């Protein structure tokens, strides 16, 4: 009876009226509402998107003859440019974040002591402000005659070229917005490394670098991997940075999806792009998780 899914029971008759084989254990029975909620709230929209991706282009119903046309047009068109931009910007963001966050995480976990709480708070506060507002803040900072260039002009009399609306500023924006998503798991990871274990490695003759390589890095890997995955998935799904800071110099795949759903009114095409994005990101995440099995890293297996 353990094999009966909650779904079957719900769609079937009253469980109590059925023979014993139909009865659910209390745990599973209690899980039914949550499973239903997840099916409706999570699975249904996803299935709708998948369904739409097989509908003829520029149609609005879900009950037509399925077609692969949308996927064909994605693969024969120039959408790959957008995919590459999204993945490339995501990768660049994650790598920069790793380099920036590790020392900060190390400091938060080991060096700053009671200042850590304050610093953590400072890193958290921006999360309470809408991402768009923060990005517009950067616009005001970097724009011609803005905070940075305006001040520079006032002090030195020369005005350098504005950095806005370039690929570099997109990465800066993404690094800024997704920093906490790398920093906090990483800090957790670093603080999970026992002090005595590091002392032991050092005492056994390891240099500071060897301690880092042999102990710190592998033992904080769960936090690092989670930070990588979290910030990568978010960064690949980013859109505002490219649209606002980048002045749409770059069209990431998310923007393509948005265009398909709005101006193009091509829901099936947008759905196909969304499905492909999910597949690409999902595959990458699985690949990473296979390579870095969290339980193995933690020595639980």
């Amino acid at each position, binding site marked *: 009876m353990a094999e009966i899914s909650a779904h079957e029971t719900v769609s079937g008759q009253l469980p109590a009226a059925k023979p014993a084989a139909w009865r659910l254990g209390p745990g599973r029975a209690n899980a039914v509402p949550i499973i239903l909620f997840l099916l409706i709230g999570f699975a249904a929209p996803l299935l709708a998107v998948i369904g739409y991706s097989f509908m003829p282009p520029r149609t609005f119903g879900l009950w037509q003859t399925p077609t692969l046309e949308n996927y064909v047009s994605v693969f024969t068109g120039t959408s790959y440019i957008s995919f590459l931009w999204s993945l490339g910007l995501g990768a660049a963001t994650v790598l920069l974040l790793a380099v920036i966050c590790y020392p900060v995480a190390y400091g938060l976990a080991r060096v700053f002591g009671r200042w850590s709480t304050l610093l953590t708070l400072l890193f958290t506060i921006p999360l309470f402000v809408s991402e768009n507002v923060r990005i517009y803040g950067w616009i005001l900072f970097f724009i*011609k005659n803005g905070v940075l260039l305006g001040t520079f002009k006032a002090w030195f009399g020369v005005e350098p070229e504005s950095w806005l609306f370039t690929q570099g500023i997109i990465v800066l924006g993404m690094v800024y917005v997704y920093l906490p998503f790398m920093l906090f798991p990483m800090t957790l990871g670093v603080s999970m490394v026992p002090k005595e274990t590091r002392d032991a490695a050092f005492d056994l003759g390891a240099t500071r670098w060897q301690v880092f390589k042999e102990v710190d890095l592998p033992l904080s890997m769960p936090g690092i991997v989670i930070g990588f995955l979290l910030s990568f998935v978010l960064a690949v799904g980013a859109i505002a940075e490219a649209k606002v800071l980048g002045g*749409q110099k770059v069209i990431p795949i998310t923007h393509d999806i948005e265009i398909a759903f709005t101006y*193009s009114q091509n829901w099936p095409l947008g759905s196909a792009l969304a499905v492909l994005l999910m597949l690409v990101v999902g595959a990458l995440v699985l690949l990473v998780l296979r390579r870095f099995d969290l339980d193995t890293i933690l020595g639980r297996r």
Partner: protein
Amino acid sequence: MFTSKLSRRNFMQQSALWASAFAAGGTLGVRSAMADRSKELNILCWEGYNSAQVLDPFRESSGATVKAESLTNDPTMINRLRAGEINVWDLINVNNPWAREVMWPEKLIKPLDRARFEPYYEKMLPAFKPPYKWALDGSGQELIGMAQRFGPYSFVVNTDKISKESAEDQGWDLWNDSANAGKYGILESDDWNVFNLCCIAGFDPFKEHSDDEVAKFTDAAKRVFKGAKLVGDIATMNQALVSGEIDFHMTGGTYSVSPARADGATNLRAITPKKGPMAGGKGGIAWIEITSVVNNPDVSPLAEQFLEYVQDPEMSHTVAFAEGTFNPVSQMGNPDCFKLFTKEELDAIQWDTLEEEMAASAEYDIVPDYDKLLDIMTSAKREASGG
């Protein structure tokens, strides 16, 4: 400053909209036809009509629950009706051709009582005197909606960099001058960008296009997007104009520049080219919003009441200066309404030249091969980014 449009551009929000649209197709559509809708009104509109300034007095006087959702392009709204939300909405507010040429033939909207509503047109600005083309169906028999906000919509310049006169004379050729690369922006209003690119390529957007014209369009799209300093929303465009990042941007008019002008940046100005490829040699394009009653089988009785409510001089002025963007309204033909506008407000909407700009503009119409041109443009935009 010009941040009013930020949130609308948020992708997550857009996604949520689509999720709700999917859901609406399935669940809302089967809502009981017996539901009492006398205290409920749902409006699908461009922003402004969804503001508290406009809705709250109506909510108070009618005691009804009024829900208004704003979107920033016409096809999206119409496709939501097509996707099954015709059972949800009572009023729809879109640009002129969509009511007459798309929604009416598709039976997405229903006619208004001509005797009750046509007299309102008598009091509007002269251009709207009945019979007003965009308020009527193709046969001229049925009144299908009410006009209110309108405006010329071609491009915007910083007159400190390019004078009004030279911009009007040069017109769309501003984008054909390679010296201007890197000096202009493009508003992310993709449907209008298609029109503008047609004008830049030298032909009328509102007709079926030949292969030769499509090829010219493709070239223009690649060139114009490549040369753009940035693409962004209205707030970004105005910010970039004020700061000097750009000198001018395409797709723009009183609708987009009025918030900046109201904020004191009167050196920014909507420009209507003196000549161009449109019928009659016109160089500009103008829009007129038409608000229609949705052909909802269970339409709210408040729908028509609301249409009358916004004709009131006071409310017309509120609509003109509702949050977001500021626009002229047809009701300004009524002295009772016009006198409510201050000098600054008239200046923000460029009242001084409004009449001649409207006269120099062709009225927004349907582009028969819009889908094809949009795909070409989207691809050109992407390739420009691929560099």
